[in-house]
Every structure is written in C-alpha cells, then in structure tokens.
C-alpha cells in the first residue's frame, strides 16, 4: 500500500529523519499564514506531478492560497488531487537519492544511493548508483552507513548526517514493514543540513495485520473493484470484451495468452487465487455479470473441490443473474464429465481443455456485432 507524501514524511519524522515543516490541507481557506517561502505540493500516488503543474512555489499567504486552489482538483495522469502539502521551501545546495527496497535476488533489504538525486532513479546511469544489500543475519551496522556516505562523497558533517539517516531508514523499513522507503531528493541545504525533500513509502499489504493504523487508509476503487477486494479476488480491467474468471495468477495469465492466440481479447479478469472454493467461484460469476462483458470464460483448475460442485455454484449464479451472454466454462478435475453435462443442460458452453475453451470464447467474442 502506497502512502501519500505527507503520510510518508510523518513516518520518516516518527523514525527521526528530518523533514521540512509543513501541513496538509484540502481547501485553500485552510491556509491562514505561511512562515516564509513555501512549496505547495499535490498529494497524488503517481510520479511526474511536478511536470504536470502539481508543485508550485509561493512566498505569501495569498500566493499560497492561489496555488492551492489551482492544484486542488487537478487531474494528474488520471489521479484527482484532493489534498496539498504546504511545506517550508528548502534552500537546495545538492540533491541526493537514498532508498531501501526488498531485493529478490539477494533475499534482503537493499540500499540504493546516488549523488544524482532529484530525478527518477531509473534514469540515473547504473555506475552512479550504489546497491548495498543488508544481510538480514548481520542486520544494519554503522559500516553500512559509512559505505554509503563514502560513495556519495560528502564532507564529514554531512556524511555523518547521511549515515544516521541510513540507520533510521533501515529501522523504519523493518518496523513499519515497508517494502519500499525512498527519499528522493534527499536534500543537502545551503546551510549544510540533510533533509528529506520528498518521500515514497510502500507498506507491505501482507503485513497490514500488524499495522492497524495503516489499514484504514482510503483507497480510490471503483464499486466493482471494492466488491472484488472484499471477496479477496484480484480484479484487473483490460481493453477487450471477454470476461475471464480463473483461479491463480499464472493460470489467469496463461488463459489470457491462450485467448490471444485465437484472436480474442480479454476485458475484465478476475483471479480467485489458488482456490477452487465453489462459493468463491459463484461470487466471481455474479461479480463478472455486473462487469457486462460480451463473453464470459471461466477456467478453473480444481484441486480440492469436485467439478460438479463448482458447476452447481456457477449454474446457481447464472440463474440468479440471468447473465444472457455466451458463457464458456472449463472446469478441470474430479467428475469433469458430470460437470460438463450440467453446464450443457444449462445452455452454457462446456470445454475440456484450456486451448479449446480459449478458442470457443474467442469465436463467440468475434462473432455477432
């Protein structure tokens, strides 16, 4: 779960990392006074807001109110700005990059640091980025911070500030279950202080059970996405017109690939996870009916449940909702044939294999209007 900048900065501050003084508002009238030059920053969970006009400078209250009124409501690459962060403007001497992230190949938290901060880290040449994994059995030690500070080539007093921020950032990632904690830019001010200019923190959504304070954050979800989330079903909206229901991420993607082979295009897809629980299959069919695809393709590879039991749930959902679009169903496992007979009697199109199902659904989607 991504945190807004102002929340991420509050988390940094909680862990002792310096951030500029600031406050968040949702209406320009909430700005009563500003202490010297400030920045007004759109709070959206997408990059590139500066280029989109979502960050403005102001020196006086009136300017700040005007900037805030321009930014609030602004649509930045599909995200509507509801709040802005008003914070003290830093006098920037240098912009660094410092981040900690989960690294698959070293199976560890990995520090990334660069003296070329301020821009997207992906556009910084590799030789200018230090990658330093922290062996979890060793844990963070002061030498990690010294290595990073040395790489950044800073004078002594700033080096010690950076090393201290490294230690706190690692501690933050461990304690908050952050899969990403990124400070970009990490600003060195003209006065020689090292302060977080911006912050991106992503909390591991699988760890929210032990971080109840994050769990209540509002999310921008469509009603269908909300329903899917409540059912623990992955919901993805694509361009095509075949509604795909499958169990498991890999199988769902393989179903998409197979449809594509036969000229079809997937629209909404629902991934139930690895389960073949008939109740969940039934809920997914009901949900899919609301998404109104042109054809529905159900692909369930059964592990525990018998196919006829799954088919019974599908048929119940179909009867409850009178779906009215071609429904191709492939349910693999024990009692497959009985399930196919049941589906056929219901006017659905049973299929025995993945390719066959993909071909049938593609044909249905390409036929007609």
């Amino acid at each position, binding site marked *: 779960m991504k945190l807004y900048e102002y929340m991420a900065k509050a988390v940094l501050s909680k862990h002792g990392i310096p951030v500029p003084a600031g406050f968040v508002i949702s209406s320009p009238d909430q700005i009563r006074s500003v202490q010297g030059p400030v920045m007004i920053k759109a709070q959206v969970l997408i990059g590139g807001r500066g280029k989109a006009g979502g960050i403005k400078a102001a020196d006086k209250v009136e300017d700040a109110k005007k900037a805030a009124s321009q930014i609030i409501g602004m649509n930045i690459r599909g995200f509507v700005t509801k709040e802005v962060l008003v914070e003290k403007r830093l006098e920037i001497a240098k912009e660094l990059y410092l981040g900690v992230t*989960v690294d698959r190949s070293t199976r560890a*938290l990995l520090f990334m640091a660069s003296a070329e901060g301020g821009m997207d880290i992906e556009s910084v040449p590799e030789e200018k980025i230090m990658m330093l994994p922290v062996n979890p059995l060793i844990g963070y030690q002061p030498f990690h911070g010294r290595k990073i500070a040395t790489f950044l080539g800073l004078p002594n007093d700033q080096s010690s500030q950076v090393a201290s921020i490294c230690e706190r950032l690692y501690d933050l990632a461990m304690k908050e279950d952050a899969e990403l904690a990124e400070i970009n830019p990490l600003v060195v001010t003209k006065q020689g202080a090292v302060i977080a200019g911006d912050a991106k923190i992503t909390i591991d959504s699988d760890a929210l059970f032990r971080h109840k304070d994050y769990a209540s954050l509002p999310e921008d979800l469509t009603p269908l996405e909300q329903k899917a989330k409540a059912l623990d079903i992955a919901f993805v909206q694509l*361009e095509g017109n075949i509604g795909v229901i499958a169990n498991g991420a890999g199988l769902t993607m393989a179903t998409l690939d*197979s449809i594509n082979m036969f000229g079809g295009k997937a629209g909404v897809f629902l991934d139930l996870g690895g389960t073949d629980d008939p109740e969940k299959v039934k809920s997914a069919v009901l949900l899919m009916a609301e998404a109104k695809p042109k054809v529905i393709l159900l692909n369930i590879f059964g592990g525990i449940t018998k196919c006829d039991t799954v088919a019974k749930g599908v048929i119940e959902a179909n009867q409850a909702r009178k779906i009215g679009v071609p429904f191709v169903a492939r349910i*693999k496992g024990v009692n497959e044939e009985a399930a196919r007979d049941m589906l056929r009697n219901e006017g659905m199109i049973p299929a025995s294999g993945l390719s066959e199902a993909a071909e049938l659904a593609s044909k249905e989607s390409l036929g007609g209007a």
Partner: protein
Amino acid sequence: MSIIVGNETKVVVQGITGYQGRYHSEAMKEFGTKVVAGTSPGKGGSEVNGVPVYESVSESVKERGANTSCIFVPAPFCKDAALEAIDAGIGTIVVITEHLPVLDAIHFINVGRAKGVTIIGPNCPGVASPGKAKVGILPNKIFARGDVGVVSKSGTLTYEIVNAITDGDHGQSTCVGIGGDRVTGTDFIDILSLFEKDRQTKKIVLVGEIGGTSEEEAAEFIKENVKKPVVAYIAGRTAPPGKRMGHAGAIIARGRGTAESKIKALEAAGVKVAKIPTDVPNLLEE
C-alpha cells in the same frame, strides 16, 4: 532418483488440525507420502486421520524421525513455524502459506539457507515425485511417473502444465512449485542444478511468468550449466505493463520483467519456448 522429496521423505505437517492441513495430509498419504506426524500447539496427543499430533516439531523429529516439514499455519504465525522447524533440525521445509509479510520470509529464508536447509515457497503448491512422495497441495491425479523435471513459479498453472505433460504420455521425475512471491527460499537456478544432476530427469520444463528477472538469470545458468533439453512457458505474454497480475511479483514495471525479454533470453540459451501451455508436450517430443 528424484529431487527434494523421495522415498526417504518423512513429513511433519505444521498446522495439521486446520482444514487445509487435515485435507492435504490425507491427500499426501494417498499419494504414497510417509506423513509421520503433525503439530498443532495445544493439541498434542491427539490424532488426525491416524497421524499423531505433537506440541512441537522437535518432538516429531525425536519420536517419529520427521525430516521434512509442510507448513500450513496462517501467515501471522508462519515465521515462527518455519524457524521452529529449522531449529528442530528439519532439512527440507515446504511453505504453503500465502500472504506472508515479505520481511518474515526474508528472515527465515536467510536463516535456513545459512544452515543448509532447503526451503520451498512461501506461497507455493509444493513438491511431488510421482511414485514416491508429495509434500504440498498439488492434485494427485495429474501426475505420472517419468523423466520430465518440472519447475514453476505458479500454482494452478503448474497443474495445467503437468496435466498436459501427462496427457501427452510423458511423466514427471519431480515437480517443484517454487512459489510466486518476490522472495522465495529456492529459485529456478537451485532447482535446475538439481535436475541437471538427477539421473531420473532427462528433460526439464520451466514455467515462469512476467515480473522480476529470475527467468533471465535462469537462462544464463542454462546456457552455461544445463545440458539436458529444456522447454519453457512464460505466462503473461499478453499482459499489459503496469498491471499487477495477482502474484506479488507478476508486474511489468518500468519496462522490466516483460515476457519478450524472458523468451529472448531463454531462446538464446537453446530453450524451446511454448506460446501456450498446451504446446509444452509437443515441444518435449522434438
């Protein structure tokens, strides 16, 4: 021979009294697996389907000679369960539990690897060597004994492909589902190197998916170290960039982790790549 699990495997099921633990311990037994014990704190002394339940893993090792653990406990307790198994001297741990906090996985995986413990998962379907043993939740009926080694990031897609291999009149030496999470105890390279050494395995099938770079790394490894023929399928060829496709790792982000890059790397290493899962058995014939 086979890899990771075989005739010598003696399984302790951690979390045996839950629905999944109960169901799958029975299914493992039906597969021919020696399920020697289960654990469930507070329920020691009872039995599940004739399998004795202990308070701790170390008791199951001492009393029943357990050498392999299959973990079904819920995510909040999974790190504790895995560390307990490592501490009890279990040599192979299969973690079925999904939605595990990644830092928990990182912790016990590093401890396990440092102690020479083989950890499969988390969030994986397990390991099956037909005719010998299965540790995990893979459906029994799809397997046939044979010479194809299967390694996969997926769950149900693994079943789909194993089923296609069996329908195509091939069988499996061992099938390993390494799990789709970002951090896993065992990766493609670990398993490829075991298959290359395993005498029963004559051909290898690798099932990957978009996201990350482990398929590219596997391709590099195959080029240098694997002489046995390898067939691959990469799921998500038609997945759009920027959309997370269910698995934590399955996302094309910032142009990285695309199916094209993986397929290109694998083909450059001499691997035949199937366009759809049902093509895998055809490519095994060639």
